[in-house]
């Protein structure tokens, strides 16, 4: 067990090291921060001054050492555009992204699992056919198309929900600005959260349905029914419990995908999160921001995957390397 865990942790560290080296390469070889900062018409002396200020006049190995040293201390250099520490800017935007991802995940799990159970239990009802048809659209619609359609229907044709921004926020004591506590904030959350959650909702629905279909045919369900247990109790307590393990795994493994689509969702709804920040940084060639974002996301993904794998190994002792 411990051998597996330490192997898994080592693998995660190797991935992080590779990603951070990529981050350094981005700094080193892409874009020209000096002209970006000093302007196109700067003199040689001005260029040299900026280069020195950024530490770009030192040998590569010293720059690499500085980069790794700084990265470990959470310092990824100054944003070329905002002239503020890049990591600080990214962290400032993080609460918005986390709240959106959380809301999307809750929607996906609640509707995906509930629909999956219901459709498996009542496969012939009109509701089930409708949901199964909807799931086909759910996996066939790019999330930007979902987002735009939602805006068109719920903000333009029937203007009942706000399409842009986060709305009214409340600042929590530790500096976290939340939209969960005001009605306006929650209203602003609905459309983007559904957009981001749609793909995962469809995936979780399909997974739960097929798992439930298999479970409902099994002997222990027949036994439970024979004992005279209620329909609801059998469905949710006996069958669903065994289906949830792969569901939880998929949620962990799909995290990277969720981050990717959060970039799209944030861009459509002007959500002031990290995804939107990344897009702006891409168009400004603001490489410290891009590198901070990549390293932050990589750390999150690796951490989550490692946790999922280790939890899974505890739950199912047959899973091992080799």
């Amino acid at each position, binding site marked *: 067990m411990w051998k597996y865990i330490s192997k898994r942790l080592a*693998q995660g560290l190797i*991935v992080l090291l590779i990603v951070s080296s990529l981050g350094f390469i*981005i700094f080193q070889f*892409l874009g020209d921060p000096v002209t970006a900062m000093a302007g196109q018409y700067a003199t040689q002396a001005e260029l040299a001054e900026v280069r020195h200020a950024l530490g770009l006049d030192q040998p590569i190995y010293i720059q690499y050492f500085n980069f790794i040293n700084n990265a470990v201390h959470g310092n990824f250099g100054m944003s070329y555009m905002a002239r503020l520490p890049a990591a600080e800017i990214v962290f400032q935007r993080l609460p918005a992204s986390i709240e959106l991802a959380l809301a999307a995940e809750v929607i996906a799990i609640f509707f995906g699992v509930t629909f999956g159970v219901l459709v498996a239990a009542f496969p012939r009802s009109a509701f089930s056919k409708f949901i199964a048809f909807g799931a*086909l*659209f759910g*996996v*066939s*619609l*790019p*999330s*930007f*198309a979902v987002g*735009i*359609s939602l*805006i*068109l229907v719920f903000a*333009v*044709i029937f203007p009942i929900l706000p399409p842009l921004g986060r709305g009214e926020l409340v600042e929590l004591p530790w500096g976290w600005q939340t939209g969960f506590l005001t009605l306006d904030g929650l209203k602003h959350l609905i459309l983007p959260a559904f957009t981001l959650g749609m793909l995962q909702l469809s995936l979780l629905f*399909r997974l739960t*349905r*097929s798992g439930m*279909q*298999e479970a409902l045919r099994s002997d222990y369900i027949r036994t439970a029914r024979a004992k005279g247990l209620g329909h609801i109790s059998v469905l949710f307590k006996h069958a669903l419990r065994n289906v949830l393990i792969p569901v939880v795994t998929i949620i962990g*493994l*799909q*995290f*990277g*995908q969720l*981050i*990717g*689509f959060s*970039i*799209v969702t944030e*861009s*459509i709804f002007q959500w002031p999160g990290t995804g939107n920040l*990344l*897009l702006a940084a*891409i*168009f400004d*060639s603001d490489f410290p921001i*891009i590198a901070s974002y*990549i390293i932050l*996301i*990589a750390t999150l*993904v*690796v951490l989550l*995957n490692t946790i999922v794998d280790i939890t899974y190994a505890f739950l199912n002792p047959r899973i091992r390397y080799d």
Partner: protein
Amino acid sequence: MTNIAVKRNSQNYKLLLRFLNHRLAVAGALVLVIITFCALFAPLIAPQNPYDLTAIDISNSLIPPIWEEGGHAPFLLGTDVQGRDILSTMLYGTRISMFVGISTVLLSGFIGTTIGLLTGYLGGWVDMVMMRIGDSLLSFSTTLIAMLFLGLFNSGNIFLVIFAISFSGWVQYARTMRSSVLSVREEDYVTGARVIGASHMRVAFRHIVPNAISPLLVIIAIDFGVVIMLESTLSFLGIGVPITEPSLGMMIAQGKDYIYANMWYLILFPGAVLISIVISLNLLADWLRDEVDPRAKNRR
């Protein structure tokens, strides 16, 4: 000889019958054939060449479809912001989306099957390292990797898009191929072929590959749809195809700013084509999966 030919024909005939009985798969195939035809012959069908700057007149911008008030010939589905005929731009855009889709599936399929064949056949540390790399790439997801990759280079080059998606797109082909190889490798006919003295190459390509093809077909059908969606998403974000040669996703991105003015036609038509392509591919993939693995039918 003739007997075998007849038998094979009747098997194909049965397959055709099963296909025709599957109404959704037939509908999907039909839609795909029509869209592919339109994309292939876009220059002959399109009323206007949207890449020819001299043919575009900016004073024709944002004309609604012909049946709406203010719409007029020759702009059947209206025009976009730059005065390009929407129908023509769509025909050319579908072409680009299909080209990216096919090229990416070919590239990542080629890389993936090669790696899968090698790792499955060789095993050992090559296998372990490649699969760990694959796991790591998958945990970041193809979507995220392609976005970051293109974001760094931000050059609007169509071949860069193909490369960016293939960068991690090969993994699922490799996994499928590898598991097929692993299950086939121990079969008696493979051992037999080795004993007779067939070379590794011959065993790999004559005996293993043909038996691993059918699960790959399902992956191809699904992946094709996924790649087309991903390309449109990247172009929607402005980091995909060049702005002068819009794909379907970029058309939707350009129309996005006008939905508050209720100019739905800018996004509805390209969106409908995009969704039709992906849904058709998914329907075909569902049918293929049932054909390849009949047990899956009960599982779904």
